[in-house]
Every structure is written in structure tokens, then in C-alpha cells.
């Protein structure tokens, strides 16, 4: 029972956090798809993508960003995302699973 409650709680937290990401991106007019495709263009494989994104979310700098300078100036405050590492990893996994190319080509 405890396990079920824990999973429910974690799931709820993840959905909540993901919604918050979507909401924020929507408000700023930054397409999650666009940033995903840009990151994919640079990092390629899944592991590489996730590691790089995790690192970027923790230490966002101009040099580690995949977006161009103009985009960064216009949109990004370059502040670290304040969530736990575990939740951030889960968010990145969610991001990959929802936007990945593999399995979505016909």
C-alpha cells in the first residue's frame, strides 16, 4: 500500500513538474519541440542528449547552450532549474520519451 502511495505521489510530482515546464515554455513562446530538435541536432544519441541536457539545466551558460546567442538573449534568463537531480532526470526522460524521433517516423 505504501509502495502504491509512493508511486502515485512520485507520478503526481512528475506530471506536475512537466506541466510546469510546458506552461513556462508556452508563456515565453519557446517551443519544446524546437529546443528538442536543436539539442538533438547537436547531441545525437539518447544518452548523450540526456547527459548534456542535465548538465545544461544545472549550469546554464551561453557556451553550453545549443541555441544561438540571439535566442539566448531574447528568451533565456540562464538560471539553474531548481529541482532535485532525481526529478530533473525524470523530467528529461519524460522530455525524451515524448519528443523522440525513433518510433515516430513513418
Amino acid at each position, binding site marked *: 500500500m505504501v509502495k502504491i502511495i509512493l508511486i502515485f505521489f512520485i507520478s503526481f510530482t512528475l506530471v506536475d513538474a512537466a506541466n510546469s515546464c510546458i506552461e513556462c515554455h508556452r508563456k515565453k513562446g519557446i517551443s519544446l519541440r524546437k529546443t528538442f530538435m536543436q539539442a*538533438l*541536432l547537436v547531441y*545525437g*544519441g539518447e544518452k548523450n542528449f540526456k547527459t548534456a541536457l542535465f548538465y545544461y539545466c544545472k549550469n546554464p551558460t551561453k557556451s553550453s547552450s545549443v541555441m544561438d546567442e540571439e535566442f539566448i538573449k531574447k528568451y533565456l534568463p540562464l538560471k539553474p532549474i531548481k529541482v532535485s537531480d532525481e526529478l530533473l532526470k525524470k523530467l528529461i526522460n519524460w522530455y525524451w520519451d515524448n519528443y523522440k524521433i525513433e518510433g515516430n517516423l513513418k
Partner: protein
Amino acid sequence: MSIYLLLISLVIISISIIYYRANSDRLELQYKTLMQELSVLQIKRLKWLHNHFPKYNKYPRDERFNSAIYDLEYKEIFSTLKSNRIDFNKNFYFTKNYAIYSTILSDYYLGAKYLFIEIPKNSQLEYRIFQNIILYGTIAFLLLLLLGIYLAKLFIQPMQRSIELLDNFIKDTTHEINTPISIINTNIEMLQSSDACKSQAKRIKRIEIASRTLETIYKDLKLSVLSGKNESRDEKYDIKEIVEERIEYFQLHIESKRLNLKKSLESVVLKVDRVLLERLIDNLISNAIKYNRVGGSIEIELNRNYFVVRDSGIGIEKSNLDKIFERYRRFNESEGGFGIGLSIVDKVAKRYGFRVEVISDKEKGTEVKVKW
């Protein structure tokens, strides 16, 4: 001839391999050039799809080729390839039915690092290469064969003429030698029966030995020259009688060289031509006498399995043993002869399926065994 054939075959095979390699390289280059162009085209399409995904999500296809994209972790993103064999370490390779070309993308469109292009192999081109190899290889082989035959004839002609001359000379000599030998033999017999010549008995004996030697040579030459022209008459003979008769014939020679003769003869009945068998026996005994040392020994053995003549003579070099049956081949010039004796032995043995074995030690002696 067989060595020459082997050599030209090797040369043609080597040239064929070089030709095949050169053409394969050319073919590979043609494939690579074409597939490189197709890769550039496909990369452009991937780029376009990357920028328009997910509005457009149909993987770009082309009827000229199949393709696949893999990420940098070698994970397949999408594939229309027919081949199962994917090699990330090779830029170009062939599978059973396809040629595959791989490109590494500098920008990972759709997350792809590797792009594979696959086109069906043009087996007609390969078939044409093999066709050319077989066609030109056969022509070259036949030309070289004809050239070889021509050159062989050119070089062998002088040898053939020499042998022809020798054969003609022997034929003429053989024809002329018969009458004088008969006259000498008849006169020797007359002298031996005459009392007036008892004091000259020793000299007459020497003349008889010389005459018999001549007679033996005459018979050999006659057989050699006329071999194949006369039909042989095979009949059943007791070989022991013939051997004893031939030993008797050579008795004077044996005595003149003071040879110690040991014989062990059993009755053996064989169906043979008497003239041919006499030549075989005569030649073996004659050689054992001729190439023996004075006071040496001769052993003659006959049984149901073989006939053997052993001597304590000069022997034959081991390296020459395989050539002793060749016609006109002589290894010792100290004694006269044409070098046809053992060739006659060989010929007769082959005719009746006998096996001739020669064991010889230089300066110790020779053993010639004819196995029935």
C-alpha cells in the same frame, strides 16, 4: 609438356586475378561515386525533415536506393534496408545482393550520426568480368599452347633427327651384319671339328666368344628395330630350359672372365614369345658378365615368383637408377653397346606385365629381379 601447361595455367590465373581486382576496384569506384551522390541527396532530405518534424514525419524514400539512419550509440532510428548486415567500421561493402555505403553526418539530423545507403548489386557487370576472364583466358591459353607446341617442335626437331639417323644406321647395320655372323659361326664349328686346328683351340674359342657377342648384339638390334612389326608367338615354355640354354650360350664369356656362376633354377611354365624372353634373359646375363670384374660372381635364380640375376660388378649410381631403361642411355663407356639392352628388358617385361626391380650398389654389384 605438363609443366608448360601448368605454367601457362598459373600465368593466366594470375593475370585473371589482376584483371578481376582491377575491374572490381573500378566497379567499386563507380558504386561509391553513385552512392555518394545519393547520400548527399538523402542528407538534404533528412535536413528538411528535421526542420519540419513532426508536421511531416514520413521518412524520405527513393526508388533508386534504400537507406537507414543510426544514432551515435549505433541505435537504429529508421531503416528501409533489405540487408541485415550493418558494419559501422566500413565506408563501403557488399552483401550478397547489395552494395552498402555509409556516411557520417556532421549535423545529427533527426538524431542520426550514420546514414547507410543500399543499392542492389549489378550482377551483370560482375558476370561480364567473369565472361571476359573466361573468353580471353581461353584464347590466351590456346595461343600459348600453340606457341608452346611450335617451340617444342622447333627445339625437339634436331633431337628427333639424331634419333632417326641412329635408327636408320642401326637398321642398315643390322641388315648387313647377319650374313657375316652366320659365316663366322659356321666356320668356327668347322674348325672345332677339324683335327688340324686342335693346337689353335684357344684362339678359336676367343673367336667364338667374339662371334657370340656380335650375335647377341645383332639379336638385340633386330628386336629393337623390328619391334612392333613382327607378330609375337606366345606359347607355353618351361623357362628353366630356356635359362639353362642361355647360360650355356654365355658359358664361354663366363669362363673367359673367370666368373663364379651360382644358379638355382626351378621349373616355371609361362606363356611367352620365346624370342622375346630370350632377349630379356640374354640382356640380363650379358650385362652381369660385361660389367663384372674378372673373377667376380654371378648368381642366377629362377622360381615361380621371379627370375633374378645378381652380379658383383661395377654397379650403378643411385641417381641413375630411374634412367637405366631409357633407350640409348649408357652409364658406362668401358664396354661396347648401343644402350638398348635394358630398354628391351623393360619393353618385354611391360608386354607381359612383369615387374622389373633393380637394386645396385656402386662398386659392389647389381641385382635385377623380374617378377612374374
